[in-house]
């Protein structure tokens, strides 16, 4: 069948026959075609015959009404389907909608996001915490704390206890690896690799400037504390000296737990400015100043102090009182100066210690040197080179780096293997207070130490038998050394370039 040729292709007017029969011609063309139709017999015949066919078809195929089914149930179903359709929303969200609705798109989006996050982290620090840079050293930390009024302390006890517990819990999770120590009237806060020193000129209501080996660390008071500070007006001018957060000590609690010799009488977490007045057990260089700051600010500190004061007081003394115990550095037997006694004028009465509950969180982060040292120390400890390992751990301690419990354990092992069981046991006792240590590990090391001690005893007896004359002299020397150690534990600490009298448990 050929559709391309029409029977009337020779005559353009005849081609309009169908349009004329079906009434699709406009008036002008219709008139023109009717003029042609009057002269064309063939078109007349065809128009008539097509007309008849059309009328016959109309008769044969009348319009049929759809059945009741179409008008009833099917119609209702159709309308229900039409109502179920949600109208189209904005075209802008069509792509996100497509992503959300299509599982494959959703998966792809999720992988993209997660992968991107991993890639960013990887490129920044290979999935590790980045090394501490100077610009990163600005962290939120404790605000200064004025001294409370002693008379108000007793009435504030319940409230203070509650606040103290809140504060304590808040900072419990913070990892502050090193104890803070005070000496020479200057407050020094050890945390991570930062030895902090308060600067009066940079101290403001919300900030605390701390000297660090790598620069100055500005410590920002946490917002809630600022709110407290601003809510309660100061009765007098704010003190120049700033109280160190006793929570810093709290982070180092473990270091002092086993040390029953720590004097908790004067617990003053004070970071005194070099030129500013400070009060506390160790005082500042300048005259002591007593602040009459808002009581609300001092409650927490008081409460914590009161909570910590009895025999089990642990960390708060760290900020003020040099612990009477050996330090890591003391293991070398290096002489160190004992801290000078605090000026009497700056030592408050016994229950007067004012310890802020603010904590100074010194940022700690791995850097290349310490990480290398850490690895070397671990290798040395593993390979039995105990002397090297001990030195390296002490070096780490000097650098104020955070020492992990495992490293402490290695250190204890090394001490034990080098025949220094007493020290090892002391360190082990300290480690027992570390919640991260497991009993099995501790027992294992304890067994090792006791075994080593048993092995050494026969040798010592033999030596004593061989040299009976030398024994009393040696014993006298030992006793002398022991006395010296007990009297001034810090003396054995090695001299440090920046902080020669700092003592630390870890």
């Amino acid at each position, binding site marked *: 069948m050929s559709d391309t040729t029409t029977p009337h292709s020779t005559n353009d007017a005849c081609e309009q026959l169908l349009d004329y029969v079906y009434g699709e011609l406009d008036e002008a063309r219709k008139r023109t075609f009717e003029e042609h139709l009057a002269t064309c017999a063939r078109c007349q015949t065809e128009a008539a015959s097509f007309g008849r066919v059309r009328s016959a078809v109309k008769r044969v195929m009348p319009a049929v009404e759809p059945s009741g089914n179409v008008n009833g149930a*099917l119609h209702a179903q159709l309308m229900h389907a039409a109502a179920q359709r949600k109208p*189209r929303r904005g075209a802008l969200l069509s792509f996100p909608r497509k992503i959300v609705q299509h599982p494959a798109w959703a998966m792809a989006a999720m992988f993209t996001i997660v992968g991107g996050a991993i890639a960013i982290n990887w490129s920044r620090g290979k999935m590790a915490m980045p090394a501490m840079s100077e610009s990163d050293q600005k962290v939120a930390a404790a605000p200064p704390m004025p001294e409370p009024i002693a008379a108000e302390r007793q009435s504030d006890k319940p409230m203070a206890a509650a606040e103290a517990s809140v504060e304590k819990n808040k900072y419990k999770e913070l990892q502050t690896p090193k104890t803070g120590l005070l000496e020479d009237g200057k407050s020094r806060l050890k945390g991570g690799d930062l030895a902090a020193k308060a600067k009066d000129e940079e101290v403001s209501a919300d900030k605390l400037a701390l000297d660090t080996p790598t620069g100055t660390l500005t410590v920002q008071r946490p917002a809630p504390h600022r709110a407290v500070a601003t809510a309660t007006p100061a009765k007098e001018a704010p003190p120049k000296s700033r109280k160190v957060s006793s929570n810093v000590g709290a982070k180092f609690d473990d270091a002092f737990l086993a040390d029953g010799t720590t004097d908790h009488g004067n617990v003053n977490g004070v970071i005194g400015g070099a030129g500013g007045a400070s009060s506390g057990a160790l005082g500042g260089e300048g005259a002591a100043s007593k602040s009459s700051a808002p009581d609300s600010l001092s409650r927490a500190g008081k409460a914590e102090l009161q909570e910590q004061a009895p025999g089990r007081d642990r960390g708060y003394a760290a900020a003020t009182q040099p612990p009477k115990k050996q330090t890591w550095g003391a293991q070398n037997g290096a002489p160190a100066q004992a801290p000078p006694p605090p000026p009497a004028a700056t030592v408050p009465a016994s229950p007067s210690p004012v310890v802020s509950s603010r904590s100074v969180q010194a940022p700690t982060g791995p850097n290349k040197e310490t990480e290398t040292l850490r690895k070397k120390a671990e290798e040395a400890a593993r390979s039995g080179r105990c002397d090297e390992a001990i030195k390296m751990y002490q070096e780490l301690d000097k650098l104020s780096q955070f020492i992990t419990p495992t490293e402490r354990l290695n250190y204890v092992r090394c001490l034990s293997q080098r025949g220094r069981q007493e020290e090892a046991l002391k360190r082990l006792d300290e480690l027992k207070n570390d919640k991260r240590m497991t009993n099995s590990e501790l027992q294992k090391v304890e067994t090792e130490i006791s075994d080593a001690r048993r092995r050494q005893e026969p040798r010592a007896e033999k030596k004593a038998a061989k040299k009976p004359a030398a024994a009393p002299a040696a014993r006298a020397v030992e006793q002398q050394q022991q006395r010296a150690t007990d009297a001034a534990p810090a003396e054995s600490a090695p001299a440090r370039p920046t902080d020669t009298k700092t003592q630390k448990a870890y």
Partner: protein
Amino acid sequence: MRDDSDESLMFRYRDGDVRAFELLVTRHRKPVFNFILRFVRDTAQAEDVTQETFLRLIKGADAYERQAKFTTWLYTIARNLCVDAARRGKHRKAASLDAPVDEEGSVSLLDLVPDGGAAVDRQVQSRELAVRLRQAIEALPDEQREIFLLREVADLQFNEIAAVVGCPENTVKSRMRYALEKLREALEEYRDLARAVQ
């Protein structure tokens, strides 16, 4: 004044106006059903295809653009569904002598077989004419028949049919002319037969 053209109703439905869709259904259900019925030649199947046609409208409402005429879109859907249905039904369809040859089911092929009686009244002649005409329409090639039905039953213009079928308008007119000529021939044959019998 509200524009109640098919296109505006469809846009209103696209924006969530179900009432507009109901108006469209009411307006087009009968011609669509008739077109489908003549195409598929089965009432039940025609109902199903009609329903499916309007469901396709619902599904495609979001994609409807104003450039397209609504009837063109509607009959394109209906025609495609009819072609699919005819393709499926072609394999299982077998002419039966008992099957009714008209929609009313009153005349079967047995009725049309000559029984030797000489007297043929006018009513019978009319029925025979109708049967022959339907047979002639069904005998048309598919491409001519669909155009014939779209023109006569759905009452679409030639340019619309061209859009529905997807071929040039001249081709549509040509096919239409051939279809009309074949039907004319069938009518003339019957007229000659009727004259001879008389």
